[in-house]
Each structure stands twice: as C-alpha cells, then as structure tokens.
C-alpha cells in the first residue's frame, strides 16, 4: 500500500523528529570511570580538587551545581538517579537528604581516620569536609576591644543601630540561631534575637562579605560572618582594605566556644558508581585535598593532620562549640519561624 506524497512528508518529518529527540534525550551513560556529584557548592571552588582527583585516579567527576532543588531532584529520580554523591555547604541540607532516606551508610577506615567523629555522622551517612567558624567582626576604630566577646553580647543595648548581618533566613544565620535555641531554650533565644534585631543598623541584606564592607564604609560597627570570608578578603587586592577595618572576635571562648558549621558530603542511596564515589570521598578527606581546601578557600580542614592556611593560622587558635551539629539541626524550623516572629528581616 503506497503512501500519498503528503503522508510521506509527514512520515519523514516524524522520523527526523524522533532522531532529533533520540539525540536530545540520550541520558547520561554510566561509564566505568566516572563519579556523579550533585553540588550546592560553586564549581569554581571545588573544581581544582576534582581535577586533581581525575589526574590521580583517571576517574572523571561530573557535576550539577545548584543552590536549591537538588535534594528534591534526587528524591524524584529515586533508584534510577545517576548521582553518586551530594555535596553541601551546610549541615541542614545534608540532614535533609539523610532524613529523606536518600543517602547510604559508608564505612571507610580512611574516612574515619581523617575525619574526627564530631564532624561525621555516627552511621556514616554524612561526612564533614571543612569547617567554618561563625565569627564576629568589629570596627577597629569604633568598637573598643572587650565590648563584645560572646554572641549574647550582640543583644546589649549599647550596640543599638550598630550591627549588620545577612538575612536571618540564610542557612548560616539559621544554624547560629538554632544553636542559640539549643543552648538557651526557645524563650531566651527569642529574647536574644529580638535584642540583636533592635541593634540592627539596616535591613539584613547582602552576603557576609557585604557586611564587612559596610563596616569599612561606616554604615555599621559590628557584623557576624563566616570565617573564610575574612581569608578571601584579606587575600584580595581591593577587599583587603575592608578586611583591615575590622578585628576578629572568636565568640564565647570562656564558655561553650564558637559556633561551627560544615561543608560536607553524602553518598546517595542509589549511587551507581559506589566504588568511585568512595574513592572521591576518601580523596577529599586526604591530606592533599584538605590542604588544597585550606589554602584556596581559607576554611578549616577537618583532617587534624592538615594545618589551616597561614593566613587563617594568623588569627590564632580558638575553642569550638562541641554541641553536635545533629542537635543544632533539630531547631532549624524553630529558628526560621523565630526570625519571622521578631521581624528580623524587616
């Protein structure tokens, strides 16, 4: 039965379209020497480590970077997900993935030897790779030393109109507020947050770097930031001027210590390249990768054998808050709602 010319054209079009569609929809083939990472960290921060890993092992590292939605993507993809590892900058995102049953336990002597137990999950569902301290910075000109030594001091009435922070909803602020809830209980933490809010110089805005800049411009005198931002600014030509306008305070050295957060990694429940994934995890905790992290990003290595960068060491030793992050995480939603209740973000 012959087709009419018109139908022939239609058939040809359909054939061409399906060819095109075939090429479009070819899913990522799972080759032998690959490992697939969903990352909440920017590629430019982690690529040097991944490149080095590929050079040493011949295993290619494929990444997707986004700041939201990757845990949801993993959940929807289910057992067919191509992702082997999920990489985050905050313990909250890690525990989201663990709570949703999207991760698996990894048992590795190398990992356990490199990473102290407080920075990894007891069951091996997540591992911290680097540490960051939530520090207070104060204007060298306008804040006398010793006025602020604790997070609690930030609620002091004499700081009215002098504090700058990023949004209270950001994961770094959220974790700090959650740790205040964990230590003081909800009512006291709320009173503290209200006090800090009353001391704000402006509506919370910008990232941590922008707060230091605001101090150098005289808009505020005190800010709360992650430690590595100081390192980044001190080693940048233009920004070192901003960094020079502040003193670093490691809070609560006389009691519980400074609040810490981690950037970490989990192996996904459906990981198709388990062996490669484990190799990458072990590599990232190794002395080599840890020192690359330390030098390049000015974060604190979790591996005790690896020193922090010279710059970071120059800030001095300090005591960490040792309350397990798994405890802090429990108060995340309370902390988030508290920010709304006291109207922290304006």
């Amino acid at each position, binding site marked *: 039965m012959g087709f009419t010319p018109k139908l022939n054209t239609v058939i040809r079009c359909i054939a061409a379209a399906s060819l095109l*569609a075939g090429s*479009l*929809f*070819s*899913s*990522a083939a*799972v080759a032998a020497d690959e490992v*697939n990472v969903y990352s909440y960290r*920017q*590629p*430019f921060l982690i690529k040097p480590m991944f490149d080095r890993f590929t050079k040493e092992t011949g295993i290619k590292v*494929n*990444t*997707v*970077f*986004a*700041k*939201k*939605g*990757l845990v*949801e*993507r993993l959940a*929807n*993809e*289910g*057992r*067919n*997900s*191509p992702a082997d590892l999920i990489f985050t900058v905050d313990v909250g995102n890690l525990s*989201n993935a663990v709570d949703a049953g999207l991760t698996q336990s990894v048992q590795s002597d190398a990992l356990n030897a490199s990473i102290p137990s407080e920075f990894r999950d007891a069951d091996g569902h997540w591992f911290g790779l680097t540490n960051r301290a939530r520090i207070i910075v104060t204007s060298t000109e306008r804040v006398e030393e010793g006025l602020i030594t604790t997070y609690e001091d930030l609620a002091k009435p004499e700081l009215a109109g002098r504090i700058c922070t990023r*949004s209270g*909803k950001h994961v770094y602020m*959220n974790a700090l507020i959650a740790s205040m809830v964990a230590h003081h209980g909800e009512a006291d933490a709320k009173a503290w947050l209200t006090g800090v809010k009353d001391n704000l110089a402006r*509506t*919370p*805005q*910008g*990232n941590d*770097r*922008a707060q230091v*800049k*605001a101090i150098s*411009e*005289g*808009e505020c005198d005190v800010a709360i930031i992650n430690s590595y931002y100081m390192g980044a600014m001190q080693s940048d030509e233009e920004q070192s001027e901003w960094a020079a306008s502040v003193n670093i305070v490691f809070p609560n050295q006389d009691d519980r210590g400074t609040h810490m957060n981690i950037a970490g990694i989990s192996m996904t429940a459906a990981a198709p390249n388990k062996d490669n994934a484990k190799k990458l995890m072990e590599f990232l905790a190794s002395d080599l990768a840890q020192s690359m992290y330390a030098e390049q990003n000015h974060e604190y290595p979790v591996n005790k054998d690896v020193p922090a960068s010279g710059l970071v060491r120059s800030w001095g030793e300090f005591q960490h808050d040792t309350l397990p992050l798994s405890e802090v995480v429990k108060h*995340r*939603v309370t902390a*988030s*709602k508290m920010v*709304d*209740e006291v*109207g922290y*973000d*304006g």
Partner: protein
Amino acid sequence: MSSSAVPVASARTALSQPSHTNKRYGWLLFGITVATLVCLPILAVAWLALNPATNIWPHLASTVLPTYLFNTLVLMLGVGIGTLVIGVFSAWFVTHYQFPGRQLLSWALLLPFAVPAYVIAHVYTDLLEFAGPVQSLLRDVFGWQGSKDYYFPKIRSLGGAISMLVLVLYPYVYLLARAAFLEQSASILEAAQALGLSRTQRLFRIALPIARPAIAVGLAMALMETLNDFGTVDYFAVRTLTAGLYDVWLGMGNLGGGAQIASLILLFVLCLVGLEKFSRRAQTNAQSGSSRFRSFERVQLRGRKAFLMSLFCALPVILGFVIPAIVLVRYSIIYFDVSWNSDFPTIAWNSISLSMMAAFVAVSVGLLLSYSKRMLNNNLLNVAVLVSSLGYAIPGAVLAIGIMIPFSTFDNALDAFMRKHFDISTGLLLSGSVGILVFAYTVRFLAVAFGGIDSSMKKISPHMDDAARSLGHSSMGILGRVHLPLMRSGILTAALVVFVDGMKELPATLILRPFNFDTLATQVYQFASDELIGESALFSLLIVLVGLLPVILLSKTIDRSRDVYD
C-alpha cells in the same frame, strides 16, 4: 483576547460543510493533549500544594504575610505603572512624531530586553552603593565624610527593585504597543482629527482603547515576570511572596507550603487576567482593512519639545542598556583572566542552541493551540490553554520541581515495567537530559509565544478560512498556506522573544540540567550568587550581546509591518 469571532466561524462552517466537523474534533483532541502535557508541571505544583509538611498559614498570617502581600502589591503596582508609562508613551512618540534620534531610538528602546533583571540589579548596586562611583564623587565634591552626613536613596529597597524591573521589563509593553500603533488605521485617526480631537485626545480616546488588548498582553508579561522574579528582590532584601515561598520551602523544609504560596500567586494572576477580560467584555476589535496600511504623517517637532521627547525616549535606553553595558565591559576587561574559561564556545553554544530549540517548540505549540482554538470553541480547550500559559508566573525553581515530578514518574514507571517484563533497565530516559530543559523553557515561556501568535491569528478574518476551505484546502493546508504567511511577523516576534527569554533563563536550568552542562546564565550565577560581580561580568555581557541580534531583528520585523507600505 476576545474569542468572539470563533464561534461565528465555526457555526458557519458547520452548517455549510458538515464533513469538516470530524477534522475539527481531531484538532480539539490534539489541542487538549498538547495543552495537558504543558499543564502537567503546573498541576504537579498544585498537587504539591495539597500535601504540605505542616500548615504554614497560621504562622505566616500572624507574622510576615502582611509584609509579603504589601511588598508584592506595591512592586506590581510600581512595575505596572512604570512599564506602562515608558512603554506606551515612547511607542506613541516614535510612531507619530519626528524628533532627533527617532529612527535609532525606535529600535534601541528594545535593547534593555536583552539585559537580565539580576544583572542590572547587580550593576546598579555597584554604581549607587556607598562605595560606588556616584556616592564617592558626591562625597568628593561636597566634602562629606561618612554615610551619616548626607541622604542618598538606598538602591537595595522596594523602590530600587521597582526601578530595576521597570528598566528591563518595559520593552514588553513597548514592543506590543508599538506594533499595535503601527497597525492602527490611519483613517480612524484622521477622522478623529477632522472631528477636532487634539493629538493627546487622539491617543487617549482612540489609539489607546484600540491598542488596549495588545498593551494588556505586554503588561501581563511584565507583571508575570515581576511575580516570578527572585534574583532581584532577594538581592535587594525585599520580602515578596516569592521570597516567602523560597523561605517556606528551603528554610522551613516545607515544599508543599511553598507550593501553596505559588498557587496563591497563580490565583492572583488569574484574577488579573479575568479582570482585564471582564472590563473589555463589550468591546470588539474590528479593524477596517482597506486603508489600514496607509502611512500617517509624523509630526515634525523642533526646539525644546523635540529635545524633551528625545530625552524621554533616550533615558530608558541609557539607563536600561548603555550604562549597564559600559559597567559590564569595564569589569569584563578587569576580570578577564578570572572569568575566561576555555569551555566558553561550548557554553555559549549551549545557551544559543537551547534557546533556539525552545523558541521553535514554544512557537509550534503556541501555533497549534491557537489554531485548535480557532477551529472549535471548546470550554475544556480554553481552560487547558489558559492553565498552560500560567507557567510564566510560577517562580522558576518551583516550576522545575513541578516538571521533575511527571518526568521522573514516567521514567521510573517505564524502567520498572521494562525491568519486570524484559529484564532491561531503561534508567532515567528523560530526566536530566537536554530535552527536559527544552520542555521546561516551553512551559515557562509558552505564554509569551501563545500571546503573540494568538493575537496575530485573531486578526485574520474567519472569511479567509471559509474562502480557502471552499477552494478545497484542508485545515492543515489553510494553516500552512493562508495563516502562516499572514502571521509571519507575529510568529517571528514570538520566536525572538522566547529566544531572548531563554538566554536569560536561570532557575529551572540550574536544577534540571544534565551533568557538566553550563549555559551563559549558570556561569553568571556561580559567581553572582556569591556577589562576585566583577567575575560574573564577562558572561553577563555575553548574554546581552547574544540577545542583541534577535532584539534588533525584532524591531526590524515590527517596522517592516508598516514600512513596506510607507
């Protein structure tokens, strides 16, 4: 967009040629199927909204909801007024007046369209903040010391967000208003003149009411973009409903609650669309064809008036395009070594090819839906088409989750089936492919494509269809031989707008893309998300540059619609 012409046409053809009824039902079925596919992600978001982790509303209502609503309403009102004033007046001026720079400005007014909102927000913050060149200069000139010595409006504010969004969104209104003004019959305006109406009266009493449907479409696009914007309001610390949505989802771990806010935003949009339609219910848009393309005389302006008009039309271009472009070029040069990336050709090609495919698919779908609606006025189809165009108002990251759900459900079901019966694993066939991105762009930008195409389609008299049909053409033949040639400029316009929107698309691309797949926008984001403006400038500049070509083509298309007859 009145559809009053369609039932008349269908009734007539149904009477004269009953054999076509079946074919028209074929189109109906096809239209509903396609629209339903496009609706799936939106329905998935609605489904998520039915399953919140906890009820967020008591908490929100007692705390931040009033702020969210207030900010959202003021933002929409501000952007609405700003885009209308700039878009409508500049379109009227370049169409009906002659002043220095008119020719250049008539297309340059579209240029800010190529600049993503998140980029312009960064640029102006850099210029206008305390340490920026503007305030530094003022301090040097007036000898002020600190920020407390003088008042300077804060760029990171609700007003700042309105200004930024107006600067990049007014081209939607301009584009459609200008096309509408160019199409208006010279004879109507001449009649009005003969009856003693002044130029201004002719604008407000004749030209605007006739152009209203087109302007409403442009305004709707601008407002929907405003509603789904997160980059600008987040950067400026303006807590809108969209910002609240992300907070509920990510900060409180309540995706369902976030989806409820998204649904609230959609309800908002539906109300707006409904209100506009209702207010126009008694109007018809007949345009007498004969003298439609007779050229009208432009009024020659001189002196102060000409200067003011040039200034009015030049300012949006300078603020929305020239200044950002200069800043981006400067930073691109300074930070070239940091931002340059040997993968650049691949990345640029990813952006361009993806946007081209999206433009092609969105326009095809828009065309088919519009034609299906023309063939048969069916309530189910109308609703499906309306819902399928809502993707434009949903914040991109939420829409991405909505897209993920049907795709991965299908992939996993197919995989399970194949494993069970054939012992083969098909894995994820569609999820994580470039195809899902093309689909995502289509869902996001279908409103843009459909709006433009449908209004072109409606301008074609149903008599044409009847005549063609009586000559023995099939419905496909009529579309191809009669409608497509007549709609050429409308289709090209729709395709170009989707292309430029695609170049700027960020949130859905980030979440849905395959491994190691970057576009120009995701490259901007990896630096800009850490407020590293200088490092991100090169790729921002490239988005703008690639967007320029279609934007220029766009204005040529519109001009041709008239100039051919000039």
